[in-house]
């Protein structure tokens, strides 16, 4: 290698090292590395707090699976309520809201299986507050709302309250219609985003 070549390589490397420390600020000061949590134009970066929440929710749902397998829906509901009842964010990111919504849907499903219809209704309402956008999450909540009303109707009918049962059946049909409408809009939006027919 000639001295000239060595000097060229050294020059390249020196500049890269200098630029690694200082990047390209005109004043020559180092540009600080962006922190993960700093807000950027266009949104908030995925942050450790979100991952911690998701990890907790994941554990809760798997624990609920085990309780369900052991025919203990009360314990399943109790562990899921720890996710939705204990505040994790002052302003939850959208992923957290969607997980809250899905968790509320599961709680409503479990509560209604045990014929606890009022807490099931409350969970559905709370979930719909979290999932206001036209998404599968919102459509799923209406589907569960339909199931809740269907079970309520069966329970009322079993107890001889035919009129109230019919009202619940009507509500179930309305909820299923809303669910189907939302799912259709989700699919339509997805096709439009993909460049397909709107």
């Amino acid at each position, binding site marked *: 290698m000639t*001295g000239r070549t*060595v*000097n060229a*390589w*050294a*020059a*390249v*490397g*020196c*500049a*890269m*090292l*200098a*630029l*690694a*420390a200082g*990047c*390209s*600020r*005109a004043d020559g000061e*180092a*540009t*600080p*590395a*962006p*922190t*993960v949590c700093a807000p*950027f134009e*266009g*949104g*908030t*970066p*995925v*942050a*450790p707090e*979100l*991952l911690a929440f*998701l990890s907790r*929710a*994941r554990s809760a*749902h798997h624990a*609920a*699976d085990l309780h369900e397998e052991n025919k203990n829906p009360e314990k399943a509901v109790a562990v899921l309520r720890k996710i939705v009842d204990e505040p994790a964010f002052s302003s939850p*990111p*959208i*992923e957290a809201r*969607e*997980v809250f919504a*899905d*968790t509320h849907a*599961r709680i409503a*499903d479990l509560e209604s299986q045990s014929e606890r219809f009022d807490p099931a209704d409350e969970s559905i309402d709370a979930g719909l507050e979290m999932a206001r*956008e036209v*998404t*599968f999450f919102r*459509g*799923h909540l209406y*589907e*569960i709302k339909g199931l809740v009303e269907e079970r309520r109707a069966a329970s009322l009918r079993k107890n001889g309250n035919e009129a109230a049962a019919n009202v619940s059946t009507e509500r179930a049909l309305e909820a299923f219609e809303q669910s189907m409408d939302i799912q259709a809009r*989700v699919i339509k939006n997805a096709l439009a985003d993909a460049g397909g027919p709107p």
Partner: protein
Amino acid sequence: MTDRQPPGAAPEVLALEEEHELAQALRHAWAPTALDPRVNERLIELALEDPLAPPTEEEVAESVRLRDALETGSEHAGADLARALTAALAPQPLDQDTSKRLARRATASEERAAAEPERGNVVYVAFGAAAAVAALAAAVMLVIQPAGRGLEPAAQATMSEAVPTQIALSRSTSTLFDAKFEVGRTSSRIDRIAEARARDLRKNRYTSWGVR
């Protein structure tokens, strides 16, 4: 050679042997070759008395210091090395104003150098002060790229523009699902969401450390 010199200080010169070592190191950083697996194993053996042993308190504390240095950009021998290797392996493009400024300084330095007597086969080591070296290399960086890795042909994006585009932002998880939700499958949905965002967070960390 890593000591910074104040502006205007006389540049330090390297002995021929040191110059050769530096050139080799820079070449390896610029265009690394695959490590022989046996050498790799030997290096691990040398570095770790017991590769499967849990970390000591000192190792944990040191890793925290390294992580903090990588996140904040503060000085740390390991972080400095990581940043230097990152810059060598995947140099970021310069913005147009900076490249022009460096080119002007390089031109001025060359004119000054032409008026001075021949110094011989030496390498100038002055990271903070040797504007000529940095400027020359900066100009070279605009047109040279290592094989298989890419600077854009028109590498004019600024760092402030480039970095945010690599950051994964919080967003709806709807795109993770292509069909309506099945009742009784909530856990698998949460699994998918958690795994996707774990990948995003990992990517953000690497980006913030400048190692991707």
